[in-house]
């Protein structure tokens, strides 16, 4: 994301914040290491007078962090961020938040397609959805209280792509993949490059509002597995695989268990109307993911499009012998 932002010459200063040191060094961007609740946000905003905050750290996968930490990050982190942005004399004019369609839940009583203003039909049952719904409420309150600040909330569908690892991608990369017996839900995905492009799109154009971001098309879980060449293993729909070890064995966090029953579809016309064009369809995202995975398997390593090697990089950047404009 930061790399992409750096290409925009209009950006004066780019400031990265995170709990880990970034794996790829930035060119123009600076980096501040923070704790997970963004408690130093207030000071940073004051000191740097930033005008745009991109909040992309929201956790949408409950298996990646402990429950307590997720609440800290999604709710308290968002709260601190908004508090800093809304403080008296704040320079922040635009906040972009990366959220998830998980806020709609997944239940039998759901409509086929969720629009941005469609309410959930089922009570919040799991921790990640609770945290996201809570953060959603914070954003809404903030937008109401600070009409001078543009607030953009992007709700992304399940992300698949070349690099990202999620419970869904982990399941699909195994020879067998869980499904729930008798259910074959329709899922909608978004390709990971489209995620970055969507964030850039709203940041650069300064578009406020609430948008669903998901690629065209929905496909049944069986078809997803088919594209990926994995065999579905049906689990009993009545088995209590809320039992922790079993859920972990199959990489089935609570939010995925519901999704594998009833699926979810969202209306993306509002976001497309802002002038955004997707690079991939849902099926295309699945294919991109599995093609990258096959390549990784057959070469036996992680052929990410680029692996960072500090010395080589320094050479390319600063050595006078590298001819600018030459094909490196």
């Amino acid at each position, binding site marked *: 994301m930061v790399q992409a932002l750096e290409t925009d010459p209009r950006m004066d200063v780019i400031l990265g914040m995170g709990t880990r040191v970034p794996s790829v060094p930035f060119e123009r961007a600076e980096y501040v290491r923070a704790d997970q609740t963004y408690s130093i946000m207030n000071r940073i905003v004051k000191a740097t007078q930033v005008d745009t905050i991109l909040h992309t750290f929201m956790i949408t996968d409950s298996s990646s962090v402990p429950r307590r930490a997720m609440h800290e990050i999604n709710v308290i982190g968002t709260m601190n961020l908004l508090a800093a942005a809304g403080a008296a004399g704040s320079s922040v004019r635009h906040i972009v938040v990366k959220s998830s369609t998980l806020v709609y839940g997944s239940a039998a009583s759901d409509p086929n397609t969720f*629009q941005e203003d469609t309410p959930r039909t089922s009570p919040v049952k799991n921790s990640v959805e609770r945290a996201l719904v809570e953060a959603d409420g914070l954003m809404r309150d903030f937008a109401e209280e600070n009409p001078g600040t543009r607030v953009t909330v992007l709700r992304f569908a399940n992300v698949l792509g070349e690099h990202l690892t999620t419970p869904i991608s982990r399941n699909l990369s195994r020879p067998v993949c869980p499904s729930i017996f008798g259910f074959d839900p329709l899922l909608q995905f978004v390709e990971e490059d489209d995620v970055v492009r969507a964030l850039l799109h709203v940041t650069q154009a300064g578009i406020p509002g609430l948008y669903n971001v998901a690629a065209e098309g929905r496909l049944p879980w069986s078809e997803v597995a088919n594209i990926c060449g994995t065999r579905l293993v049906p689990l009993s729909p009545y088995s209590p695989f809320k039992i922790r070890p079993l859920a972990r064995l199959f990489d089935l966090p609570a939010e995925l268990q519901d999704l594998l029953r009833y699926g979810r579809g969202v209306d993306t016309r509002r976001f497309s109307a802002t002038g955004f064009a997707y690079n991939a369809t849902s099926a295309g995202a699945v294919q991109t993911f599995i093609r990258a995975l096959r390549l990784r398997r057959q070469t036996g390593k992680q052929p990410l499009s*680029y692996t960072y090697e500090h010395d080589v990089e320094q050479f390319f950047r600063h050595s006078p012998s590298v001819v600018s404009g030459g094909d490196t």
Partner: protein
Amino acid sequence: MASGRQFVDDKTRSTAIVPIRIAAEHADAPEDPRLSDVDEWGRSERTRTLARALYEPIYSKWFRTEWEGLEKIPTEGGALLVANHAGAIPSDAPVIMHGIEKELGRPVYGLADFFFRTVPVLGTLWARTGGVSARPANAYRLLKEQQQLALVFPEGTKGTSKSFADRYQLRRFGRGGFVEIAMRAGVPVIPIAVVGAEEAMPILLRLPTLARALGLPYFPITANVLAMGPLGVVAPFPAKFKLRVLPPVSFDVPPDQERYSKSRIMEESERIRSQLQESIYDMLRDRRSVWFG
């Protein structure tokens, strides 16, 4: 804030080396490597074709279905089909869907309670063969945005759970929701009177306590079970099916309104109900035999 730093030349920037595809790659629609033909409603034309092949003998040999006024159903554009509902496992829904798809060659989506979605296997089969949960948002999307045919039974389970003694007595038509949706979507309502479904699987007795315990809408003891044993749970009697399509009802109101007059909705709903009731009585007057029509 002032930043004194120089902009880095494009070519030496990390993004020039670490490629990120941020430009739109496709001028037109991106490629879509789908393997199945399941649409966004979960309906699959292939599954439907298979289902039609299997159901055809039941439709034409067992029920010997006859239509009247099928030409009143439009070959394009959205319309809301409304019919009476009967039989413990109602055969009217598959007969109407099969008949229209066979004769007109266009899909019909059957709206029903979302309860079906919660049942393993059955829920998936239901969706693949054109079942959609009956929510106003779904009906609107089908009728207005996609201009499809949607079939709805406004009586709901009140129609299918009535006992044989109440046969052909239409129940209350819900709260008139189907009229409101047709108004909002700007499509006509086409009533279809069905005769035969009542006798295909008549309910003699209902066991409400057992139904509650099993979480079912109703638990019937049907004549079929008494006559055929376990097979009777699913097998209907070979009653003669006759369907009559009534003239389409259009509402003279603008679509996409926030609200529609509740009294107007109830009035239209009641009018459609009595029209259906009247033509059912009319068809029954002409019927000489339950089995031979």
